[in-house]
């Protein structure tokens, strides 16, 4: 066990998988000599060479397209999108091709590929470096979407994604890269895709979150405990396939649920979680399911005051949680 940051855990995860399996390679903008803009692949270029750590042109469609071609030929590519905001040019490749490949070929072919994308705000990244994209891709059958919030989960889920036979969109929250530290188990420590994790047990209300919001929710749970409110924190970790059983279990346990994400609310992940609860745990609810999300505006602004206004933070979550507890 060693304490690592999220970015270190991701680097370790790629390193170990590349060492373990020769078919694993990394492709993306500046991932090679530069080691990635966030230094996620720092040192890998030297260790594995230019054939396994490939600097791509500034063309996301190309990055994902190359990865699809390699995967269908038996390789296990890791395609890095420098910022999740830049993924739009690759959407056609991801949705029309990658997500449907297995379905289209009746399972004759599958694409064991990972698309890594740093997402989320709170880093003064403004319109092109702050967005949340999970809902857009989680909507697509055939894709898996994961969004770890801790170093251990970051490494374990990355390994699971690389070993998975199907395309996985791996979302790493930029703000957590160096902010969130934690113990990472030695060895493989694979975290299964599709399993949520109760990060804190509680009985009065449930906070459901992922990514950076997990850290905030744990902070909020601590403050609630000081008020005598026992909050359970469920980390979704995987957005698709979502862990319905875990969501239903916590809703049934506490009867009060607050879903938190920084993505905009409309047709978002929280909406899906709430629907699952309403369809499966209505009889156990003690209050309407609530959510805290970013506002329904086009993008995260640069102005720091406005960025702060956009981002859910512990204060906003705490206020809503207290409201829910008081119902």
């Amino acid at each position, binding site marked *: 066990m060693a304490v690592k940051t999220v970015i270190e855990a991701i680097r370790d995860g790629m390193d170990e998988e590349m060492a373990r399996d020769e078919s694993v390679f990394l492709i993306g903008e500046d991932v090679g000599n530069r080691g990635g803009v966030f230094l996620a692949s720092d040192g890998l270029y030297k260790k594995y060479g230019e054939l396994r750590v490939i600097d791509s042109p500034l063309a996301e469609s190309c990055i994902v397209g190359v990865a699809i071609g390699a995967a269908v030929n038996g390789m296990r590519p890791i395609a890095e999108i420098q910022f999740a905001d830049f993924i739009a040019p690759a959407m056609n490749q991801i949705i029309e091709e990658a997500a449907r490949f297995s379905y289209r070929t009746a399972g004759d072919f599958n694409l064991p590929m990972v698309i890594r994308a740093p997402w989320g705000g709170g880093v003064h990244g403004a319109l092109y470096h702050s967005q949340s994209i999970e809902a857009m891709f989680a909507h697509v059958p055939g894709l898996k979407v994961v969004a770890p919030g801790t170093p251990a989960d970051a490494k374990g889920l990355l390994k699971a994604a690389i070993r998975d036979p199907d395309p996985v969109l791996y979302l790493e929250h930029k703000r957590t890269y160096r902010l969130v530290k934690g113990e990472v188990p030695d060895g493989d420590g694979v975290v299964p895709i599709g399993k949520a994790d109760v990060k804190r047990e509680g009985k009065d209300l449930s906070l459901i979150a992922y990514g950076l919001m997990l850290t905030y929710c744990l902070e909020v749970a601590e403050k609630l405990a000081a008020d005598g409110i026992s909050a359970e924190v469920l980390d979704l970790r995987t957005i698709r396939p979502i862990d319905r059983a875990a969501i239903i279990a916590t809703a049934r346990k506490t*009867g009060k649920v607050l879903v938190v994400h920084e993505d905009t609310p409309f047709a978002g992940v929280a909406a899906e979680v709430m629907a699952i609860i309403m369809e499966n745990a*209505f009889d*156990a*609810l*003690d*209050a309407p399911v609530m959510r805290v999300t970013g506002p329904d505006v086009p993008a995260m602004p640069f102005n720091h005051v406005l960025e702060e206004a956009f981002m859910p933070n512990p204060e906003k979550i705490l206020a809503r949680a207290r409201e829910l507890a008081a*119902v």
Partner: protein
Amino acid sequence: MASVKMPQLGESITEGTISKWLKQPGDQVKKYEGLVEIITDKVNAEVPAPLSGVLKEIKVKEGATVTVGTEIAVIEETAAATPSAPKSQPAPQAATPQSATPIAAPAPAEESATEGQGGGSTEGRTRLSPAVRALIEEHRISDAELARIEGSGIGGRISKKDIEDYVTKRAQPAAANGEQRQQAASATAPALSPGTTVPLSPMRRAIASNMLKSKQTIPHAWTVAEVDMTNVVRFRQKVKDSFKQREGIDLTYVPIIVKAVVEGLKAVPILNASWSDQGVVLHKDINVGVAVSVDDGLIVPVIHQADRMSIAGLAKSTDDLAKRARAGKLGIPDVQGATFTVNNPGTFGTILSYSIIAPPQAGILAMDAIVKRPVVIEGDAIAVRSMMNLCLSFDHRVLDGVSAARFLQGVRRWLEGFSEQVPLY
């Protein structure tokens, strides 16, 4: 269709018993025509039909007691009887086939009908979350228990936690102490042979709830004055026959005491008052309730504005109210609005009575039996005098012993100073 509901026949009346249906299903009824006779704890009343039509259905049988607001009958308005059909009714289907509204219209009407039925039950009272409902079911929590649980949620909502806390509390002391006590009791005490249960009449229920409420909310204080009634007794002896001849009624002690009470209340107005959280309300009118015992219990008709009446007027008024009370012919106004009550247990020979105040009044005076006793009078002589105890129960929130004693003192002086000069009329 219009539903007829159990009317609220007085401010504190919560239920009524159907005494007699004056119309049967199928009968034509006219608006304001007598439809049903209802007994409440205070009065009997004939309830008129709210509209003209045909009595379609009787929902509550004779003898049954239901809460105010319960549907007791359904009247179908007849076209002839109601030329102006209510506008809320959906239009007849044949009227406008080209429009979609006639088809759509009945739906909301049905909805509101079912909602109305649901609202009548306990569900309408409080809004319970699914989790709370499930817990109530699981732990078999009765409506009465639920009513006792204080909601900690917004607007007093009962939350899941409140129920869980209640269930834990209910389980602990009850299981521990209750069982032990029961066991101990069953070990020593011989079993009681079964008695008979007398069903509770509306009046019995009303008395029970009023008395309970009074004793639970009003801190009663009690004080007694001994009154020499000799002058009053002599006077009454002297005039009672002529009074009876002239007025056709007996001159009892009650109107004389009521007169004395009125004088006492004028002198000590704090006793003619009601407690409220905002302050003590001093009443302008002096309305004296006079307790009358009837077959089933007790009723307290009211002499309104007793301060404007002579002794003869009070005598007429008490006689009339007592007769009508025993005949069950009192109206709602006859039993409402008392600001003070006079009770007369002395007729049954009692000498010290502790009456319970009828809320929201501040006091009740019991007149006990007039008995001849040797009494030390002026000049240290011993004489045989007609003595009576006046026992006052008062609301100690409203006034203190000094005011109560001053009131009793006033009443006593007025009675002891009675002479032929006191006008009867």
